[in-house]
């Protein structure tokens, strides 16, 4: 199968078989063409050449509806492509059902019952008559997964489904996938997360530059080999050298996020990368919001470089040198109408403008070419529209936006969302390398990711911080226990 966008040959002769009753994991660097392959399989785009057969029959889906009818069900990478936020959960869970069913009139009670059953299967607890708008990102993701699961698919395709789920929900998803596998469903699972892959993979297919670069079967499959095939070289190891921390940049005293949560102290130092990990919903984003002037804490004082710090809005935070790279780039970071350069220079346009606020294109271009090079963004040039980049490369641009200028405190909320292993290492290395003159706070739910970047790891649970761990010979079991212990606490 082949597929090109103009002169960009994205898929260059893919041969792939997906056996029933097995989970095939597709690994590939950002921009390798995984999502493009998925879009062809589920009828969103056509292939330029090549054939697909499903259960021995030729299969060329002309539209998503046709693919669904044939039993090819997909959960797409972008969560916002999965749900209609203004509708209630019921309608969202039954959306494709609505499209394909005959008969015109809706039966509210029957729909709600059906929706409840579907939601229960994936452990979605929200009331099904609530609008999706009110749900968290994780719950929205669960809604699209639940809808896909409810279909008795022949082939289930999941494009990075866990990128915004935490361990508990992911665990539930895995159990479901196990069941479907045992029912003989073919599953194509795309992920950059090693933990997912280890847990699920029956076979691993590696993809590089639009071609299949390796197929690894056997139990367990050869991960190291797969990663090597995907990258084309050995992965460079991430060995963390913990530098001596400098003076405190930000310190929080008796900070209380909500009325019912426990107060805690926090101090972040120059030349130090601190990771806060914890379950989804534990309050990481809330903390970031407080530091960035998006919300007020319930109680407690903040100091920045020794002076009291109470930002009223992000503008003030940025002026004082506190920057936040927000999670969920499509919603919160990407400016879709802009090219790469303009996306990068947006927050610090003051630096690139002179008399009468006139912009200096030369200065902008210099910054963006520098950042594209430093972050290793795969693109044709700085004038590419941001939307033509693959997910991982978009993410690099979003991080680059904040690394382009010096800051006092840089907060990165889930900076590795949807980023491949190599890119993750690249971003982490770059963050660490530039961390000397500021404090850096990274929020991520994945412990693997935390270990790759942190000097110090803190665990957050129930809107409160626990003790710190130096990232040296960490007792992983204990760390995991702390994270999940809070889950037990939450459940109680």
């Amino acid at each position, binding site marked *: 199968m082949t597929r090109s966008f103009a002169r960009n040959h994205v898929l260059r002769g893919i041969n792939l078989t997906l056996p029933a009753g097995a989970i095939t994991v597709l690994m590939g660097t950002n921009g390798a063409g995984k999502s493009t392959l998925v879009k062809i399989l*589920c009828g*969103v785009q056509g292939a330029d050449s090549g054939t697909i057969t499903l259960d021995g029959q030729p299969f060329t889906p002309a*539209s*998503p*509806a*046709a*693919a*669904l*009818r044939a039993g090819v069900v*997909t959960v*797409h990478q972008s969560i*916002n*492509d*999965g*749900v*209609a*936020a*203004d*509708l209630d959960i019921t*309608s969202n869970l039954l*959306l*494709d059902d*609505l*499209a*394909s*069913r005959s*008969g*015109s*009139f*809706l039966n509210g009670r029957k729909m709600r019952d059906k929706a409840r059953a579907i939601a229960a299967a994936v452990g979605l607890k929200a009331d099904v008559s609530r609008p999706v708008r009110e749900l968290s990102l994780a719950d929205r993701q669960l809604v699209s997964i639940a*809808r896909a699961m409810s279909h008795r698919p022949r082939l289930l395709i999941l494009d990075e489904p866990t990128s915004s789920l935490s361990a508990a929900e992911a665990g539930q998803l895995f159990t479901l996938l196990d069941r479907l596998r045992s029912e003989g469903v073919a599953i194509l699972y795309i992920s950059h997360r090693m933990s997912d892959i280890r847990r699920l993979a029956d076979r691993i297919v590696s993809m590089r530059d639009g071609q299949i670069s390796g197929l690894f079967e056997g139990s367990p499959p050869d991960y190291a080999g797969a990663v090597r095939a995907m990258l084309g070289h050995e992965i460079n190891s991430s060995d963390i050298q913990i530098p001596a921390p400098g003076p405190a940049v930000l310190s929080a005293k008796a900070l209380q996020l909500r009325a019912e949560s426990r107060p805690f102290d926090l101090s972040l130092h120059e030349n130090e990368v601190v990771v806060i990990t914890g379950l989804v919903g534990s309050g990481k984003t809330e903390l970031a919001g407080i530091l960035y002037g998006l919300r007020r804490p319930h109680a407690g004082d903040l100091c920045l470089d020794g002076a009291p710090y109470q930002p009223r809005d992000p503008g003030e935070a940025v002026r004082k040198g506190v920057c936040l790279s927000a999670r969920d780039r499509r919603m919160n970071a990407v400016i879709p109408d802009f090219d790469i350069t303009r996306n990068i220079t947006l927050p610090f346009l003051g630096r690139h403008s002179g008399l009468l606020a006139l912009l200096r294109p030369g200065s902008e271009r210099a910054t963006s070419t520098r950042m594209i090079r430093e972050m290793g963004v795969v693109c044709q040039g700085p004038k590419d529209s941001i939307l033509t980049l693959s997910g991982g490369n978009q993410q690099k641009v979003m991080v680059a936006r904040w690394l382009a200028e010096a800051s006092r405190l840089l907060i990165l909320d889930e900076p590795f969302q949807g980023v491949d292993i190599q890119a993750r290492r690249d971003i982490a290395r770059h963050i660490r390398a530039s961390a000397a003159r500021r404090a850096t706070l990274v929020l991520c739910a994945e412990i693997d990711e935390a270990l790759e970047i942190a000097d110090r790891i803190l665990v957050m649970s129930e809107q409160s911080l626990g003790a710190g761990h130096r990232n040296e010979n960490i007792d992983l079991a204990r760390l995991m226990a702390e994270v999940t212990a809070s889950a037990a606490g939450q459940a109680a």
Partner: protein
Amino acid sequence: MVALVTGFTIAEPAFLSARSAVFILQSVAITGILALGVTATLVVGGFDLSIGAVATSALMLSAYTMVIWDLGAVEAVVFCLAMGALVGLINGLLIVKMKVPDLLATLGMMFLLMGLQRIPTEGNSISTGMSLPDGSSATGVFAPGFLMLGRHRLDFILEDLIPLSVVFLLVIAFLVWGFLELTRHGRIMYAIGSNPNAAALAGINVARYRVLAYVISGTLASFGGILLAARLGRGDVASGNNLLLDAVAAALIGFAVLGAARPNAFGTAIGALFVGILLQGLTMLNAPYYTQDFIKGFVLVVALVFTFALSGRGGRALH
């Protein structure tokens, strides 16, 4: 709205009578029907600026059919509805297939129709006895059955109380409401308005439903035009100037009704009624036309502020 009615009743007791209520309904019947069409396009995240022009085109076309071609009421109605559906179809295809943004496509269509409807008569109104280009004069008349659509009144409690056009308004409002709220097609249209991408990926034929919305809008607008023609009894080129703005106002006020913060047929009907009550009440109080505009704007703004600011719901931005 209750406050409005009470206020007007105190100031002018004649306000609160069955006849007065019927007047109000009758005066909003045509804008109300147009506004329901706009609502259908708002639901799929679109907008239709051409409805006013479609209505006046239907007005001219029906007159042309009966007066100049000398055909009957049925033909006139069929031609007009077909014209409205066709215009809606073209709008829809321009937007869906040609990817022209909705405001642009329907604005273009609006100008086009405004010109087109005047070309056959060279800008003259159509009435029986008008002279034709070939020197003869037009002999056709408005069919009585056609005029009834706009003028006939049904006996209901009082004799001659309820005009047919009010019945049409109520029936259409009920149908559109039922279609949008109770059928799966309506639900799908809301899904498209909320997230067209997600809808497409769920296997919905987004293009077809969007076109459908414009066809509904065009057809309802042409039906509004038919009622207008039936009431006027002639093809008057100058009528219908305010239809677009009033219909849009009704549909937009409908957003705010019951805190729905989304386009909905029930709200639109209420919105149309609200504007109607306001204007009738003010007229009865002898307010000059310009204070009516002022008060219409003022009440609109205040109502909006209450709905959106105080209920704390941002509502989705219009698209």
